[in-house]
């Protein structure tokens, strides 16, 4: 699968890059929602795994932009949540928008398991 990660925290970005090393997935990591949206249009990932609180364009807004774009209709969105935002998202994200949710803190195994669960070829 093509997986795009969007995370503004350098520590978490590094963890993602190391965790995905050696997996069968093709991965890209960006630091910002706007950058993620641009790359998605060019690169057409299968899954985007995004942080919620980010500059310029947050994870929820990114998910909304994906839903609104006919060219990105098939991209599945996973949110990485920290703080209480996991709970407060309930009212803001319509059901069916998200393919999954990854709660921080997480380790490499949880990340790989999540992607395997979304991979039709797994």
């Amino acid at each position, binding site marked *: 699968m093509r997986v795009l990660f969007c995370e*503004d*925290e*350098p*520590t*978490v970005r*590094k*963890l993602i890059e*190391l*965790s995905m090393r050696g997996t069968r997935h093709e991965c890209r990591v960006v*630091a910002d929602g706007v950058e993620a949206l641009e790359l998605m249009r060019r690169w057409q990932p299968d899954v985007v795994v995004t942080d919620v*609180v*980010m*500059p310029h364009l947050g994870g929820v807004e990114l998910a909304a932009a994906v839903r609104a774009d006919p060219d990105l209709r098939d991209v599945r969105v996973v949110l990485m949540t*920290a*703080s*209480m*935002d996991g709970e407060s998202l309930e009212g803001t994200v319509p059901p069916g928008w998200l393919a999954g949710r990854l709660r*921080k*803190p*997480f*380790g*490499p*195994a949880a990340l790989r398991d999540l992607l395997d669960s979304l991979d039709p070829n797994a």
Partner: protein
Amino acid sequence: MADTDTDTLTRRVRTLELALRETRQHLRTVFDSSPLGIFTAGLDGRLLTANPALERMLGLEPDHEVTRYFVDDLVHPDDLDAVLAALRRLEAGEAERLAIEKRCRRPAGGCFWARLTASVVTTEEARCFIAMVEDIDERRKVDAAMESITARMESLNRAKSALVASVSHEFRTALTGIQGFSELMRDQQLEPGEVRELAADINSEARRLARLIDDMLDLDRLESSGVPLRRQRVDVNRLLESTSDRVRRNVTGHRVELRPAGDLPAVEADLDRLTQVVSNLLSNAVKYSPAGSLIELASRPFEDGVRVTVRDHGPGIPPADLERVFDPYTRLEREIRSQVAGTGLGLAIVREIVRMHGGRVWAENAPGGGAALIVELPVSAAAQERESDLEKGSAGPVL
């Protein structure tokens, strides 16, 4: 027979007159002794009668001629339109009774909140208004105090939620590094160099958590005034020099340029706390400006105090955030945008320490770009305490 009838009739009339007098007397007693103010007024608004309770409320002498007043004279100007409109509705028969809370005006000056209940009655002579007035000033004050307390509680509750969200976010982010990197070390074959690098990352994240806890506890102690200041005469220029040396040794490559004033008076201050102020301001400048850029650290005297300015050459502060950068646990766009880890409490700690010294701190966007954080401190401890007292709203000692 005719005489007997006449006598009987006379007795009956006297009995009725007596009964009428008693009824009038009874009503008069009720009218005079009612704790509520009662008045009648013509449809033109002129007062016809007023009981002693109303006279007391309005500050009128007992023998005051109430008929010289109109309702207009006794209602606060800001509330007059509403009261007159309500009376017109009564007069037109659109309402049977009105009950409103408005301010009454005393002819001799002053006003009070009152609950006014009125209706229109028809007497033998004419139609008129009859109204009862209850002084609710005390209740309104209690209500206002309760509203203020409720607003404060809601504000504290929001601050608490922001704190929980912010702290939780910081902890979960740092823990993601600690948990994730340690899992990698446990489960994967890594080069020795990679192991050392991940161990360093884990160490760095653990230290970040420790800093967060230290800052939270420090801010809590400062805010609850649990920290006494150990004042001494402080040479601010020397303090700026020694603190800026630490930044120069930092890895970010920022250049710190000192611009000390030559004639700067010493300040009676807690040296450690003032060092913390300058250090936090410099850390903030480092955090929000590009690596290798210039940070200017200037001092100059002002009135009976000293002003310190830390200016960076970063993107500046969005105008909407200028007032809020010193608020703790407030996630701002610039905070999120920053790629340098921090607890987000440094400037809140600065504000508390400066406040304890009777000074003030604020943020500006410098002409030509970048942000400037400016601290002003009174020179003497006495002036600091006076400023601090004034800030608290109490009169300080006269010097």
